[in-house]
């Protein structure tokens, strides 16, 4: 815990930016209604400190918390052509894209990075639900392919954090074709004998669940995440009956044999390190403060462990 960021900075903020009053500094937990101070919430990885509800977290914030000392390098994603179908509903697709870019500060709905976690080199990709509901279009497909190619080239495991409302309808059939495309990406990693780990976060639905998000060597989900092919509303309309409590939530899927684990976001990093190191035939990670990577003492510590 950092005294300056937790106490002094908010104080300064409140003194200097009166226009940024409560609504920006406080978030109401949608589950239990507790008002959470933004910095406290960020330190807790956007998990409610009162009820443990897992709120959405941006790929960048997730990677900062995931990679050692918050350092990672972005993997370049080949740019697809914009608006391949010249799609127009009530708005033009490029306008929707621009609005999403402005709201998130990101280029698209997936971020790919390489770096180390617990001194274990990995490639990771995370989907951004805030960007057009994390929907999968050509860019997300390209991102997964780039991530897989990078993992294969560097002989590293690939970790994917999924979050999506499904396919990017504005890319029509081309968004549907991301199901086979991303499946090829997964097969590249598996064919190279490298672990492919999926972390399903709230919500992961539709074509994303029915492709790369369900093909992991190990399938982990965050607590209470909605994970499904067809959404609960569509099912209720089809079968005309009420669905059971917790239906299609992470714990329900775990009970039905569809997942390996349900893991709290705060324990996720340690768990990923443990699993990946075993699958990669590496010795256990050294816990605690590490000397900077590459220094002779750190090599020795790893060799001993």
């Amino acid at each position: 815990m950092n005294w300056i960021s937790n106490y002094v900075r908010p104080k300064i903020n409140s003194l200097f930016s009166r226009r940024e009053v409560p609504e920006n500094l406080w978030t109401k937990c949608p589950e239990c209604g507790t008002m959470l101070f933004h910095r406290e919430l960020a330190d807790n990885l956007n998990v409610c400190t009162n009820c443990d509800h897992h709120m959405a977290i941006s790929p960048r914030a997730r990677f900062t918390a995931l990679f050692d000392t918050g350092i990672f390098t972005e993997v370049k994603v080949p740019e697809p052509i914009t608006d391949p179908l010249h799609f127009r509903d009530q708005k033009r697709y490029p306008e929707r894209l621009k609005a999403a870019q402005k709201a998130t500060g990101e280029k698209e709905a997936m971020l790919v990075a390489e770096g180390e976690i617990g001194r274990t080199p990995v490639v990771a990709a995370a989907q951004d639900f805030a960007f057009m509901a994390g929907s999968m279009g050509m860019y997300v497909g390209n991102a997964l392919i780039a991530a897989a190619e990078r993992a294969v080239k560097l002989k590293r495991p690939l970790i994917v954090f999924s979050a999506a409302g499904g396919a990017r309808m504005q890319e029509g059939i081309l968004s549907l074709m991301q199901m086979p495309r991303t499946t090829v990406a997964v097969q590249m990693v598996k064919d190279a004998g490298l672990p492919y780990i999926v972390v399903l976060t709230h919500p992961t639905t539709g074509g994303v669940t029915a492709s790369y998000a369900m093909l992991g060597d190990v399938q982990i989900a965050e607590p209470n995440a909605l994970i499904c092919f067809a959404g609960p509303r569509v099912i209720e309309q089809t079968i005309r009956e009420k669905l059971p409590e917790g239906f299609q939530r992470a714990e329900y899927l775990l009970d039905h044999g569809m997942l390996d684990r349900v893991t709290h976001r705060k324990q996720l990093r340690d768990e990923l390190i443990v699993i990946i190191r075993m699958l990669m035939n590496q010795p256990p990670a050294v816990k605690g403060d590490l000397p900077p990577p590459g220094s002779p003492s750190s090599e020795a510590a790893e060799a001993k462990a």
Partner: protein
Amino acid sequence: MNYLEFEKPLAEIEGKAEELRALGRANKEMDVEKEAAALDKKADALLKDLYKDLSPWRKCLVARHPDRPHCKDYIDGLFTEFTPLAGDRNFADDHAVMGGLARFNDQAVVVIGHEKGSDTKTRIERNFGMARPEGYRKAIRLMDLADRFGLPVVTLIDTPGAYPGKGAEERGQSEAIAQSTAKCLAIGVPLISVVIGEGGSGGAVAFATANRIAMLEHSIYSVISPEGCASILWKDAEKMREAAEALRLTAQDLQKLGVIDRIIKEPMGGAQRGPKETVEAVGKAIETMLKELSGKKPEALVKDRRQKFLDMGSKGLAA
């Protein structure tokens, strides 16, 4: 004959011609043939006019036409010694998916397809062509069988989509579809697909991730139904015409986008007006596509298939 909403004027003319002829049969002294023939001519011209430039939404209606030949009709018409193989060895046999061993021009193959049913009883039996996880897992099993014995796989696509049900979700609908797509991409035998009616989203992809993909002239293949898309993006399911237009779900657009390899022509007025001709045309296309792939090594087939999908979409509509 079942007429679609937009075919109503045609139904009137054809109805009149039929009435006239019935009258003529009842009253031998009446000469109706000349007038009836004129009506036939008028009907022909109208049919041509209606079908010469079908809108995407009308294509959706034609693709879903109840009298259109279904998977079973193609299997009966094009394959011999069809031997259905049932079950996923895990939970059940899904009747929405037909599959088994068969001969195509005497060559042993594995054929797999969605079957919608042709009357109320068979439609319910077939769950309207909406597969559950068992259907995809049966297909996976059959693709493995084909792979083990070097048999080409032919898939026939005709589904509104995977079944959105409670049990289907509990038993892993997403996982089953994902694994079926993965299996399509992994088998070392020729895999060809024909979209014969509706290619509904992930439920279609699970069988259609093939070396060669053909579509019937008025079939559709889409990420979501126009009704579903309209209710999400227009907040109004009645805007399905606009959605059908925007989604680019016709065979013609898909060929321009490089998603499919060939279009199979339908008889004038759609497959429902000439089921036999349609089945034969599909047979010719299957024959050609199988020939294109014959003699290729397993590794080459897998590589080609994966590359085909990796390259897909790089050009957009402009190309």
